[in-house]
């Protein structure tokens, strides 16, 4: 059963700006769905329309089967976690978490019990008397999560909740949010521009661009089988190598580059013709340094610790980026390398 359904949902802002362009989306009950895309792609506007903070200019939004377009925000029973936490600075942690319960006819003793339970869930027991500014950023975000969960929402909406945290905490919190969501079984819609978060946390990734959905699918599917150059590029480190089709054998295609080097593609996403100019898409981490048929020179090295990112200029002048694990020291600029690319990691769109 779908927990949230969007049917041809649109948001046009005055001045002809189309923020969200006729989106269809089904969020299954209990699923963790991520809206992923660059800023301005419409992901936050979509989330805010589900929350009721923006009014759609067209289409229908259903929550648990009920149309909610006309339902005011405060009657939608949604838990929302904001990027900047938005804890009420003038209220204690107890009053913050209890806030939503006050409007839900819950008795005083039940409120106390449920606040305690919510704080246990986010692993911050005993902070009831403190104030938000007395907690660290990560702790504040846990409280914000507790405040959203304590009302037992139909849907949990997360608007880039991790982007204000520093890197280490971000990874810790994303594991924690996912674990809590699974334990409670609440349906979650998560908005982010970070592909790592999207891939690590989601059951379903929805990649958005310019107000439209580019692709949706399980994390591995979207990553391994991008259906557009945008998706390939946005989900990290894609190279586009241009060449001409030299041989076609079913879905197996050979592409010749300007310098005469060959790249084999095991599984072309579309039918191509001999002599057609195409872009071969290959991810940076799938390019291996050494022992292949592509000759090139290292133009730049970006040392990342356990790995290094190499900008390699191919013999024909094209540039590709390779991401490789460092074994016996990183390679140097100017060094000649040969690149190996396995056919099953190449795609033509």
């Amino acid at each position, binding site marked *: 059963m779908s927990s949230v359904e969007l049917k041809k949902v649109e948001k046009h802002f005055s001045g002809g700006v189309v923020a969200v362009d006729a989106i269809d989306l089904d969020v299954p009950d209990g699923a963790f769905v991520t809206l992923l895309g660059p800023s301005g792609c419409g992901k936050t506007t979509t989330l805010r329309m589900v929350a009721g903070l923006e009014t759609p200019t067209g289409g229908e939004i259903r929550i648990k089967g009920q149309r909610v377009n006309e339902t005011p925000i405060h009657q939608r029973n949604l838990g929302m976690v904001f990027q900047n936490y*938005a804890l*009420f600075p003038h209220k204690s942690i107890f009053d913050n978490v209890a806030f939503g319960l006050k409007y839900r006819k819950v008795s005083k003793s039940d409120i106390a019990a449920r606040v305690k339970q919510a704080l246990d869930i986010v692993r911050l027991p005993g902070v009831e008397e403190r104030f938000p500014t007395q907690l660290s950023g990560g702790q504040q975000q846990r409280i914000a999560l507790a405040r959203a969960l304590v009302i037992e929402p139909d849907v949990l909406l997360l608007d880039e909740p991790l982007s204000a945290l520093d890197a280490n905490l971000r990874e810790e919190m994303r594991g924690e949010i996912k674990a809590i969501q699974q334990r409670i079984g609440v349906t979650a819609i998560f908005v982010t521009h970070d592909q790592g978060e999207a891939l690590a946390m989601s059951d379903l990734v929805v990649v958005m661009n310019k107000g439209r959905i580019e692709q949706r699918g399980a994390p591995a599917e979207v990553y391994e089988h991008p259906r557009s150059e945008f998706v390939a590029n946005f989900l990290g480190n894609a190279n586009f190598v241009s060449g001409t089709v030299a041989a076609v054998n079913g879905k197996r295609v050979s592409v010749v580059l300007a310098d005469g080097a060959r790249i084999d593609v095991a599984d072309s996403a579309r039918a191509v013709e001999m002599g057609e100019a195409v872009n071969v898409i290959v991810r940076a981490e799938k390019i291996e340094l050494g022992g292949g048929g592509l000759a090139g020179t290292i133009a730049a090295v970006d040392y990342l610790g356990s790995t290094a990112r190499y900008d390699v200029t191919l013999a024909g002048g094209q540039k590709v980026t390779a991401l490789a694990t460092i074994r016996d020291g990183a390679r140097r600029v100017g060094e000649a390398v040969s690149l190996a690319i396995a056919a099953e990691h190449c795609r033509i769109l």
Partner: protein
Amino acid sequence: MSMAAARQPGEGRIGWALLRLWSIAVYLFMFAPIVVVILLAFNSSRSGAFPMEGFSLQWFGKLFANQSIVDAFKTSLILAGTSGALATVIGIMAALALVRYSFKGKEGIQTFLSLPLLMPEVVMGVALLMFLKFISMPRSFAVLLLGHTILSLPYVVLVVQARLVGLRASYEEAAWTLGANRLQTFFEVTLPLISPAIVGGFLFAATLSFDNITATLFWKKPGIETVPTKIFAMLRTSISPEINALGAVMIVITILLPLIGGYMVRRFAKTK
């Protein structure tokens, strides 16, 4: 410091010395008259001028024995309190509308609200007077109250607006998603968070009203006096030492009130 060091050593020193002298002169010019008024208020001499002949509190005693002055004080305080409160309530609503909502003619209303700031007070005074004549409404305390509210409204709007702009909308949005309606959100979240600006705006408005003389002279009903108009009237007959005492009280009130306000705002900010 680094700029002075970069110049010739002697030149820098003279420059700083001149700057210091100039600053002292400016402050002297600003504050000496105030100090003189306060000093003379304690002078036992009848002349209300230097030299000081001895220390005395008699002029303060006379002040509070003078029923017309006490009445003027009452009028001023009531006027400042009520016009300040009115301006604050209207100002909060206006600021909320201007910051949190978009509507047609918003720019115009923003400009319109700050007009009393730019308009010469004499013009405001005459304009309201003419308007009252036009609708044949006699001058009264209510008119004075209305006028003072108009004069101080832009200050409240500006102060509250500045605070609201700095206050992220997500606090209010969080309250809505948790089930609070607009009114509940305003009283539970918005109002407490802008309270420092409200206290500040009210004190600003009340002080302006308490101080005002130009417009008040146009609007007041004959017989009603505020403290400034009372001082003005007393000056026309003579410079009595009572005026010094009255001036000293005015100074203490207008300086003390904002200071107390500032202290309260800081205390409030600390406890949360």
